């Protein structure tokens, strides 16, 4: 019923969009007649009309017609009708589902130009830096020709230049990647002065490959790490012990291969290796912690599946797109444990200083829209969380690619042999084939098989990323065989070489189904661009990762029986499974895998919402500190908060407690006034806080007197407060990150873990506040000042 209503609404809206698109096309002659100069002058006219109170929506038809004509004159490309429809969908804050090769880049010029008319804060987010730079260069010509400013927010890979962030974020339109936008946002909020901040607002974001960024990467927050923790030297020794354990006796692996644990025998074995007793006692807590880390590293993280080792470094792989996650580390020492396992240098552990999820980053934009070839499968989630509707833009030419039903086998081996046969056939016909594998190790295996068969091929995986563009370029040529991981799925447009169409176009061979149907569709979509012919087929087996991890128990039993039958010769090797029951398995496991990751995303979102509120509070406060020219009221409030909190939370105060507090927070050289201290009623909180307040004000005046220049003192105040807040906040961020794991156990007491998290994080926030007041006072009053001959003052924090 609800679906029906939505379909109805979608049709209704699409029809409306089509009508508007027709108006835009009809306007073309008007602008075709204009001279270049007149056409360029339209931008000024539009900007004026916006100032006079018209809205972007009012201007859309005309502005799109102008952008379309400009595209034509500058690039020689005139957006088709369907591209105009897509552009309207995008301006309306929706997701446009457009297939590969339908010209998403060109489509984007229209909404970007229109929104760029309002000035800074418009971003086009691409899947990788290469695309951002390429599109900014190619499409940038149009915007500049029309009188808008545009910059690329990233550098091409391998470039050593520095980027001028002020210039980038002052541009009307910025082409950038999600991670560079996110990191710049976080860095901006670690800045100590207004002038070292670069961003100027979040108006409009158009996200390319929106499903990849908002769904697949939702679980991977951007984290800026710093402030190293104490390094441990237990990683190597525990790794050696875990490697010596018996795989079945000492350690157990769960059926879905996602969990591993020590058995009781295992714990005894380890105790005897170390020559200790009570491994689980408080005494050996750290040792056991490292053993657990080593266990996970050795049993759950498999090289060339979860990560690759390159140049003595462990690089994590993104499961959904097979790319290396540069600069991302696993938390809690897991990364170090993997480094120990691989025998590379163990890096220092650092704590999280700032973090943001993509969900929250993009929810800061006033308007959000996205493009993707595959968004339709997750319509519900986009609507629920981001309030984005998905509209399918019809292809310019109908898609004639054939998606064949899966070929299913019992064992991996049978599957691989069968797929290689099909590849050989295509190779003999000189038809290009794209072989897509689920992991780096599978891609290596196929590469070796190809070599054995004497088939010349290219290998595209996380290790050959640099050659990506060239490999993709060749992938559509006659006889080209490309073995790739799922990284071939995004942002690659494989154009067919001469004579390939006649042979049936590109053949996509998937060697296993991925975690979601959406990613499968993404892979299929490499074939059949712009109405070209093409085929896609998946080879699957009951031993595939997704079946093992999410399959029901009977599948496991069935697999074992079949395996035994093959061994005994009862079942012929290589025989396909054709019964309907088996065909549904893949669908079922995929559905439950999707459901699992969806509920994880929802939960992340709920936790993150609480974190977001706190982060916004801090960032707003920082902004206030940087913008205000009079920080005195804030400082007074900090002092009051500090002394009142001290007086209220400490009972049975002794004279020593009070003098200690003064020594530690305001004056190293405090000479106690015995008479006043003796007369102080220490049981009266307000008397205590008054006494402390006087002392504080006195110290503050002394510190103030050391500065002759007002501006210098203001800068000093600002610096100390920001430093105090950052130090307290970093500790708190780290706390919150871990708190999430802590509260999940609370659900056993029938308590809602989200509320528990909220309660605990609130308490942690209160603690952070106290630390902040204390630090701010300390930094302000106890910092050592060193005067330089040139009038500068160096500050040394206590």
């Amino acid at each position: 019923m609800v679906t029906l209503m939505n379909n109805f609404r979608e049709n209704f809206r699409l029809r409306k969009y089509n009508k508007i698109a027709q108006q835009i096309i009809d306007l073309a002659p008007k602008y075709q007649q204009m001279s270049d100069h007149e056409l360029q002058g339209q931008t000024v006219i539009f900007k004026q009309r916006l100032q006079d109170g018209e809205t972007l929506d009012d201007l859309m038809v005309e502005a799109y017609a102008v952008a379309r004509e400009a595209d034509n004159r500058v690039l020689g490309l005139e957006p088709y009708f369907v591209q105009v429809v897509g552009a309207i969908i995008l301006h309306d804050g929706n997701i446009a589902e457009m297939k590969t090769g339908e010209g998403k880049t060109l489509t984007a010029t229209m909404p970007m130009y229109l929104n760029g008319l309002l000035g800074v804060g418009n971003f086009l987010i691409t899947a990788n830096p290469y695309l951002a730079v390429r599109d900014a260069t190619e499409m940038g010509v149009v915007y500049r020709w029309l009188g808008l400013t545009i910059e690329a927010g990233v550098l091409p890979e391998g470039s050593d230049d520095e980027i001028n962030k002020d210039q980038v974020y002052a541009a009307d339109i910025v082409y950038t990647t999600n991670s560079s936008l996110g990191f710049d946002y976080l860095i901006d909020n670690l800045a100590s002065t207004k002038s070292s901040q670069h961003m100027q607002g979040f108006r409009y974001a158009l996200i390319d490959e929106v499903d990849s960024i908002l769904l697949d990467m939702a679980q991977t927050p951007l984290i800026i790490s710093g402030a190293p923790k104490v390094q441990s030297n237990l990683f190597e020794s525990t790794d050696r012990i875990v490697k010596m354990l018996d795989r079945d006796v000492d350690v157990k692996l769960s059926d879905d291969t996602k969990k591993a644990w020590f058995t009781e025998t295992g714990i005894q074995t380890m105790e005897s290796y170390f020559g200790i007793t009570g491994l689980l006692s408080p005494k050996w807590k750290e040792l056991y912690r490292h053993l657990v880390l080593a266990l996970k590293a050795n049993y759950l993280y498999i090289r060339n599946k979860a990560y690759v080792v390159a140049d003595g470094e462990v690089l994590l792989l993104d499961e959904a797109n097979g790319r290396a996650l540069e600069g991302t580390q696993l938390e809690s020492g897991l990364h170090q444990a993997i480094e120990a396992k691989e025998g590379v240098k163990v890096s220092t552990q650092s704590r999280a200083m700032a973090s943001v999820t993509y969900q929250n980053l993009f929810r800061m934009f006033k308007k959000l829209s996205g493009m993707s070839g595959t968004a339709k499968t997750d319509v519900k989630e986009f609507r629920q969380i981001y309030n984005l509707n998905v509209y399918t833009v019809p292809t310019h030419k109908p898609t004639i690619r054939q998606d064949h039903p899966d070929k299913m086998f019992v064992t991996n081996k049978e599957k691989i042999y069968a797929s290689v046969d099909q590849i050989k056939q295509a190779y003999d016909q000189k038809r290009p084939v794209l072989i897509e594998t689920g992991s780096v190790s599978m891609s290596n295996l196929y590469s070796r098989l190809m070599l054995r068969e004497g088939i010349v091929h290219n290998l595209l995986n996380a290790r050959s990323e640099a050659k990506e563009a060239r490999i993709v370029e060749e992938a559509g040529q006659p006889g080209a065989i490309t073995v790739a991981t799922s990284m071939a799925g995004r942002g690659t447009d494989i154009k067919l070489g001469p004579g390939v169409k006649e042979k049936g176009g590109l053949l996509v061979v998937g060697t296993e189904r991925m975690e979601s149907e959406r990613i499968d569709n993404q892979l299929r979509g490499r074939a059949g661009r712009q109405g070209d012919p093409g085929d896609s087929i998946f080879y699957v087996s009951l031993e595939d990762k997704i079946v093992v991890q999410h399959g029901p128990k009977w599948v496991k039993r069935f697999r074992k029986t079949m395996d035994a039958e093959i061994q005994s010769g009862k079942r012929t090797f290589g025989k396909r499974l054709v019964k309907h029951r088996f065909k549904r398995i893949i669908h079922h496991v995929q559905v439950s895998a999707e459901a699992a990751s969806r509920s994880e995303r929802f939960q992340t979102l709920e936790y993150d919402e609480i974190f977001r509120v706190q982060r916004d509070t801090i960032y707003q406060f920082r902004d206030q500190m940087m913008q205000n020219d009079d920080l005195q009221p804030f400082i007074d409030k900090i002092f009051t908060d500090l002394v009142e909190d001290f007086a209220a939370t400490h009972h049975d105060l002794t004279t020593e407690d009070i003098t200690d507090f003064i020594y530690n927070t305001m004056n190293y050289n405090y000479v106690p006034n015995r008479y006043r201290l003796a007369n102080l009623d220490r049981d009266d909180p307000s008397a205590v806080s008054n006494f402390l307040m006087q002392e504080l004000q006195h110290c503050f005046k002394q510190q103030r007197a050391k500065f002759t220049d007002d501006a210098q003192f203001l800068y000093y105040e600002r610096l100390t407060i920001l430093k105090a807040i950052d130090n307290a906040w970093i500790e708190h961020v780290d706390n919150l990150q871990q708190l999430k794991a802590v509260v999940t156990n609370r659900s056993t007491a029938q308590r809602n873990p989200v509320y528990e998290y909220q309660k605990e994080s609130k308490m942690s926030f209160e603690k952070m506040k106290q630390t902040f007041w204390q630090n701010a006072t300390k930094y302000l009053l106890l910092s050592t000042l060193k005067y330089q001959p040139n009038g500068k003052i160096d500050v040394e924090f206590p």
Partner: protein
Amino acid sequence: MRIRWNKDLTKRIAWTALLLMVLELGRQIVLPGMDASQAEQALRNNTLMKLFGNVTGGQMSSPTLFSLGVGPYMTSMILWQAVTLFNSEGIQNLPEEVSGFFQRLITLIIAILQGFQMVYTLRKILAATPIAKIFGTQAAFVLIILMLVGGAMLVAWMADVNANLGIGGLGMMIVPSLATSLPSMLTTGLGIGDRFEYTTVNVVILVIVTLIFVSFTVYLNRAEMRLPLQRPLVENDYAGSYLPIRFLTAGAMPFMFSTSIFMIPTYLITANNQNQPWARFINDYLTYDNLTGIIIYGAVIVFLGYAFAFVNFLPTDVAKNLRNSGDYFYNVAPGDATEQLLIRRLMFMTFFGNCYLVFVAITPLLVGLNVSGYANMSFYFGNLMILITMIDNVIEQVRALANKNNYSLL
């Protein structure tokens, strides 16, 4: 804790208010053609049904659209939870859509059964309704069941809406009927003929005992045992890594089902078998007016207390989850040893929790053996306790919501 109002909270309260209004409205709509007073007369004798209705948000005493209330849905959720005890992995792997479908299917089946039972009780009155005259009695029978089932499913849907948009979740749907039934609980109670008299002295006693009971129960409801937990993958020694086990591990749930279970056997007695020894035993002892009966009732509560403790806590699952994430208690090996420890602790807590439940349930009954007029307090306090646990949940939720956006640095 200070509560600051915010928009989200206002919105949620408005939703719940709206839903409760609709619920109340539905409870006023008498099924078509029914003579309400006659029907009530017929239903009065069915104490079991009425009691069950009271504690599950229904209103079995008169034939209305929402007579079944949220009962079928709640029972289905509890059954579902119980099933996870036996096949946790299979159920946890189910996508939300599939488990949701099964939960609603069970709801539907229970609603049909309960509807059938209710209409069966009303079969004599049914014949006189216009519906029966037009469509025939059999068709009317089915039609009325359909209406009741439709009402129950609507309430189930409303409960879901409340869980998503409102406040208090599923339990909120039974709060109004529970609260309004409290006074009548004292007067009519289980229909055992013992009436509480609202004299001045009695009312004063009632108010004082109620106040003491409420504050004590709220306190116990929040009490929990905290087992300090070691989490190798969490580095910070952040205060608060513990595994809680509630004092009232079963909550007030035993009271929701104790009377029904206690009385079910009496339905096995018919005119034909009433002279059999077991039937005589049931007839003589499964009542609240003798010591044996009271002790059996206490045993039912103890049994339910343990059952719900396990259903709520799922010690096997908890132990497995701890093992999977590498967490442990000092000096206890992950896996079986941890599970044994958890079960021991759970049994320990449940024992004392049960003591309290039994104390609440049978003290008034024992008093009632000697002094008439106080036995019904047993059911009054039982219902009050259900109410307290529900409302305590709501309070917790309001607090969390109110403080969600309440941050400032100075």
